[in-house]
């Protein structure tokens, strides 16, 4: 979150991809850093036991949201 908040503050639109279990942590961290409005792209947890193909399928589901985070669209 530190990096994402830094890039946004410096003018770079950033999409940070996290798993659902970390939504609360990410929000708390962003708030503590002064970025209450910071939004993330959330994938279902868990990810570590998944195969390469299963992880790639998550990317297919998430791509719309990634694009939406980065553009005015």
């Amino acid at each position: 979150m530190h990096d994402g908040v830094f890039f946004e503050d410096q003018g770079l639109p950033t999409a940070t991809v996290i798993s659902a279990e970390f939504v609360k942590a990410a929000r708390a961290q962003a708030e503590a850093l002064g970025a209450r409005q910071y939004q993330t792209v959330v994938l279902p947890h868990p990810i570590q036991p998944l195969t390469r193909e299963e992880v790639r399928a998550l990317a297919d589901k998430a791509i719309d949201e990634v694009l939406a985070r980065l553009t005015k669209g």
Partner: protein
Amino acid sequence: MPKDDRYLDPTDSVAVPRKTAHRPPSLDGKVITLLDISKPKGNHLLDRIEELLKERAKPKAILRRKKPTFARPAPDELRQQILSESDVVVEALAD
């Protein structure tokens, strides 16, 4: 006297408000950095995101960068490099 005044605050509010970046209308012609935070599987996700970004937009370039460890913020040098060479960032994968 309010109750809280009877003892001192053990916390510290340090947050200074941060800005959110201005969004472009599309990613056409933009340089996109895909930042791998070095957690396992992040590279698989970013490989597919790279393919999808090429299908869905016409970026000028897609750059792959990697943090030495997910357990710390990116080193200053890497942050400055990303700032100087890219227009938008996708960071993955915190789980």
